[in-house]
């Protein structure tokens, strides 16, 4: 059966595993080694000021601080659940910062780092996990869609939005986030079909954090994920997702290509979910502690910190100021979350439709009357 095998280009069946009989898989795109050393990638040059580097560090650190606080708040019963981004800060901040103002982003439920980069107030994210609403920010004003919990559904939204951009003759680009698990969903693959067919200005940004809850990547694909795109006829690239500079450069390049009419790109940001899937999850059931230890050596924040330090871009005072800012942020998030008012009961009827229907109006009126009947203390 070598004939069939040769008829197409099959590369590394298992990521990381060597496959000497097959062409070598390209390395991860990396601009910063795990030790914080800057390396050059002629294809993805990045001209970046010290100021910008420090500001990237600040984002990474503050987003992690937020995440830590949110996890604690969940433990204390102040949130129903929390989906931690621990370990994925660089992938998210790098991607988020690559966006131009007019670009639109479509997150999953874990993109707190992108939310931050888009200027979303963390409390507007907390409100979702507290059960107050489904996200408090304005997706139009922030150009950051509300979180989408049904796996993969947002990839089609992003593609359709990009088709709208084309019709507007605009130069906006669109960034769709998805996980490694999501790549198995039919809708995600349909999004790639549509994006390719219409050459839509959309970039699929897949954070391969190695797991879909407990299910390892190998169940979703036998080959590196970024190669999925080739089957749909557009480029795929794998970037070190723990290297904020590489993510920034690659995402910028892909968005620029989209803007220029070159159609979609698939980016696989190779990273690791250092925490549990959510606060309801118990990762000890399905992965070894040693794996986590290995990934800790590639910590995205430590890496940038090492770079800033070794190249003298930031000093101890800077790091201390960021830490202090983090503590302030955490305090604000804590207070804001704990004090967040519950929504008005009858609000659930209010935005079902842009034009409420008479039967629903009647239901709301009954509900309010029923409620009012308890207010005089006649509750059973």
């Amino acid at each position, binding site marked *: 059966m070598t004939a069939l095998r040769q008829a197409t280009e099959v590369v590394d069946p298992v990521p990381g595993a060597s496959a000497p009989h097959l062409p070598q898989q390209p390395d991860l795109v990396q601009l910063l080694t795990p030790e914080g050393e800057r390396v050059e990638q002629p294809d993805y040059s990045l001209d970046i000021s010290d100021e910008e580097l420090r500001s990237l560090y600040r984002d990474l650190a503050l987003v992690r601080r937020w995440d830590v606080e949110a996890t604690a708040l969940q433990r204390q019963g102040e949130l129903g659940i929390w989906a931690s981004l621990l370990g994925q800060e660089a992938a998210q901040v790098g991607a988020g910062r690559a966006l131009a103002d007019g670009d*639109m982003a479509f997150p999953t439920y874990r993109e707190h780092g992108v939310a931050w980069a888009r200027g979303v107030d963390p409390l507007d994210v907390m409100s979702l996990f507290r059960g107050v*609403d*489904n*996200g408090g920010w*304005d*997706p*139009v004003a922030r150009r950051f*869609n*509300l979180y*989408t919990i*049904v796996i993969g*559904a947002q*990839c*089609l*939204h*992003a*593609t*359709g*939005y*990009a*088709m*709208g*951009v*084309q*019709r*507007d003759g605009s130069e906006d680009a669109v960034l769709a986030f998805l996980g490694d698990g999501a790549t198995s969903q*039919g*809708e995600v693959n*349909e*999004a790639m*079909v*549509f994006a390719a*067919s219409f050459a839509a200005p959309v970039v699929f940004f897949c954070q391969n954090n190695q797991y879909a809850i407990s299910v390892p990547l190998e169940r979703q694909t036998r080959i590196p994920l970024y190669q999925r795109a080739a089957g749909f006829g557009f480029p795929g690239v794998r970037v070190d997702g723990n290297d904020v500079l590489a993510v920034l450069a690659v995402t910028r390049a892909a968005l620029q290509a989209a803007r220029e009419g070159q159609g979609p790109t698939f980016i696989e940001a190779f990273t690791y979910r250092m925490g549990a899937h959510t606060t309801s999850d118990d990762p000890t059931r399905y992965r070894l502690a040693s794996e986590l230890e290995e990934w800790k050596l590639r910590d995205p924040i430590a890496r940038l910190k090492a770079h800033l330090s070794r190249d003298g871009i930031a000093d101890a005072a800077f790091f201390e100021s960021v830490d202090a800012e983090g503590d302030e942020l955490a305090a604000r998030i804590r207070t804001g979350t704990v004090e967040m008012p519950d929504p008005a009961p009858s609000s659930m009827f*209010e*935005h*079902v*439709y*842009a*034009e409420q*229907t*008479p*039967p*629903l109006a009647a239901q709301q009126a009954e509900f309010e009357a029923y409620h009012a009947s308890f207010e005089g203390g006649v509750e059973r």
Partner: protein
Amino acid sequence: MTETLTIGKALNLGLRRAMEDDAKVVLMGEDIGKLGGVFRITDGLQKDFGEDRVVDTPLAEAGILGTAVGLAMRGYRPVCEIQFDGFVFPAYNQIVTQVAKIHARSKGRVAMPIVIRIPMGGGIGAVEHHSESPEAYFAHTAGLKVVAVSNPVDAYWGIQQAIAHPDPIVFLEPKRRYWEKAEVDTSATPDPLFGSRVVRGGDDVTLLAYGPMVKTALQAAQAAADEGRSIEVIDLRTVSPLDLDPVFESVRRTGRCVVVHEAPTTLGLGAEIAARVTETCFHSLEAPVLRVGGYDTPYPPSKLEEEYLPDLDRVLDAVDRAMGF
């Protein structure tokens, strides 16, 4: 300006007018371009409005609805054609978890002015999946509205009203009636989209129908009249929201009510209507609300569809039973 139009042609003209009125209207679907759709409802529109506004999509219904959501977010008004009723299910996830919920999810910040056109129902001698009546699946889904037109006038105006409306609408077209004709006054002021309409007055029984069954109901009423029985026929026109006030008014007079639809009887629209009419008109009812629907089986091979579909006889049989209570 009065023209004699089939339902199909009325829809075609209505779509054309909606596209002229609003440059943000984009039609999407399988084979709607050069072919003009398998029922030719979009005939000539791609030629006149171009490929960016009349989009032949890849063959993927979730893709059609999912990209429509994105287009709506960008300010467009997508009108999606599902080729046949039985092929809407691949898009079901997008319709139920996204299209229906995004306005509520965003607390009203993001509107979903999407129209989902579906040729609905049986009676055309087709193979499996081409003759179904999925309206209850949508009417049970909060966040959607569901319209079922029965005639050229409502087709012409209804499609324009649906496109102009800010909420997502499943727009059901009575496929076996596409070729039925009527006079359409294209300069008239149309009736509101979401309202039922008494289409024939009567005193003995209130007969409710929508979409393709309205004609059957009217035929039954005529046959009953020949036997001296007076049936009031109401075209519901919209199945979500239901506009039941005219129904209540009628049932209070007649004391009897029969609902007819092609969809399987169990949990079809008849169930909801029976429950609501009984709640509201309990003391006026001389008989339980009776339902004439499809049987609780898959839509049968076409040689049996005449047996499956409610017809004049089955409607009259129910009327008899209602009168006999």
